């Protein structure tokens, strides 16, 4: 079903932009927030990671405080802070993962370790909620699970094989060691852990009413009870996380199509329940999961669908590669674009 439009394109979105972060010299692929909500890390085609912090002067303005470069030799595809923000991991098309650490009391990050193992481009990473595990995935069709040891070294616990094409995204389900992955092979897979080994327990493909094109992004709601996956043909699938005694499983709730059918590169769920998407048509959409209209077959209307709250056309002058809500302040959204800039948005003003 299509998202019902409740508003047209906006001509006054400029006033909703809190900050435009300029400094990258190529497309920005990814943006992530520190869990404390005070710092943004961005990375992209210029092989640099930039850290931006709110300045004390002025309201909600950001300043580039650090640039980590000359380490990765190709595009840095994604980066992510560990749970306590003490470490930042980055993955690159150069087939390496770097883990950066900010020593206690220090202002700058130092390279802690470079993890090698993937054969080719690495495309995504995810830290587990307890900060112990780091998952990476990529072009070689595999997912690697790394355990952070006491001495700050990383040991590879398992290499997950099963996808038949590039793995585009990985996500630990909050509160579990279970992992979800999305791929160029059009599937979402569920991996459950037993004794440090991950087994693929579900392969959700077209036959399961799953995706029929490349799965670009995955995200979870704050409770870890619902999952969204988005694809190259403008489909967003909403899944329920079913928790058993030792395993989790995904159950399809609804299939939702963005009206423009543009490729969806990124999806994120704010702590307050709002959903954002970053798209190939330069737009960002804000959506909400709502109960479907009660049907005769489903009088309880337990089924949820996604409704369009706001479409921001021309959010960037190029593809929107990533959208991420501030984990501490759901009223703030950051986005990264092919136009080499990162924008910070006032969500409240956008949906007014």
């Amino acid at each position, binding site marked *: 079903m299509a998202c019902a439009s409740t508003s047209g394109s906006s001509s006054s979105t400029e006033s909703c932009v809190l900050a435009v972060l300029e400094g990258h010299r190529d497309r920005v692929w990814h943006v992530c927030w520190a869990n404390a909500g005070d710092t943004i890390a961005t990375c992209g*085609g210029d092989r640099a990671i930039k850290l931006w912090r709110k300045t004390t002067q002025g309201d909600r303005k950001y300043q580039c405080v650090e640039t980590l470069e000359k380490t990765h030799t*190709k*595009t840095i*595809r994604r980066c992510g802070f560990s749970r306590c923000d003490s470490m930042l991991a980055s993955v690159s*098309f150069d087939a390496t993962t770097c883990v950066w650490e900010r020593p206690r009391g220090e202002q700058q990050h130092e390279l802690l370790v470079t993890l090698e193992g993937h054969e080719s*481009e690495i*495309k995504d990473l995810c830290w587990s909620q307890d900060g112990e595990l780091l998952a990476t995935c990529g*072009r070689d069709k595999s997912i690697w699970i790394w355990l952070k040891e006491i001495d700050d070294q990383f040991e590879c616990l398992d290499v997950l094989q099963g996808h038949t094409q*590039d793995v*585009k995204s990985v996500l630990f389900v909050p509160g579990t060691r279970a992992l979800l992955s999305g791929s*160029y092979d059009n599937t979402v897979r569920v991996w459950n852990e037993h004794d440090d080994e991950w087994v693929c327990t579900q392969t959700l493909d077209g036959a399961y009413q799953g995706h029929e094109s*490349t799965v670009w992004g995955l995200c979870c709601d704050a409770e870890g009870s619902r999952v969204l996956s988005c694809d*190259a043909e403008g489909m967003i699938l909403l899944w329920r996380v079913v928790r058993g005694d030792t395993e989790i499983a995904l159950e399809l709730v609804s299939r939702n199509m963005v009206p423009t059918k543009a490729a969806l590169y990124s999806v994120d769920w704010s702590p307050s329940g709002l959903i954002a998407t970053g798209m*190939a*048509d330069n737009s960002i959409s804000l959506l909400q999961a709502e109960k479907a209209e009660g049907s005769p077959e489903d009088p309880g209307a337990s089924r949820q669908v996604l409704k369009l709250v706001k479409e921001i056309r021309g959010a960037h*002058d*190029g*593809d929107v590669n990533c959208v991420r809500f501030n984990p501490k302040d759901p009223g703030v959204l950051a986005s990264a674009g*092919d*136009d080499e800039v990162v924008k910070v948005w006032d969500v409240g003003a956008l949906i007014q």
Partner: protein
Amino acid sequence: ERENVRRREEVPGLGSLASGAGPGTSAEDERELIDSIEVFEHIRDIADPEHPYSLEQLGVVSHEQIDVDDRGGKIEVRFTPTVAHCSMATLIGLCIRAKIMRVLPPRFKVKVELSKGSHSTEEAVNKQLNDKERVLAALENPNLLDLVNKCLAPTEC
């Protein structure tokens, strides 16, 4: 002459669509729209990776197989390999994409596809050519980039 048109578009504030100048303004009228002929001019001389001929000479590309919507910011290029099992189809598509990325304004959304029924693995090649992550990674691969640059060399401006 075509290149003059290009340069004019790149001057900030002169005929730029991004400046917010609406249709009907003088800036808009002044700029010559990019059409399929112009896109063809850019890709016709790309060398075939295997033959000493250009893509135009081999009939791989033609201006009839190009659609341009300048105002909508869309370019669609279809190409026809000389044989249906051509192992170079992906490389040819990558060359076309790389050339367009290098010479035309980034505001264009570009789709490069095999013409219908022209290749035994049409769907797989099309998927790869239109996955921007795959394309950009390929262009950072030194061996592939070298091949692409060789095919583009005669037409590089």
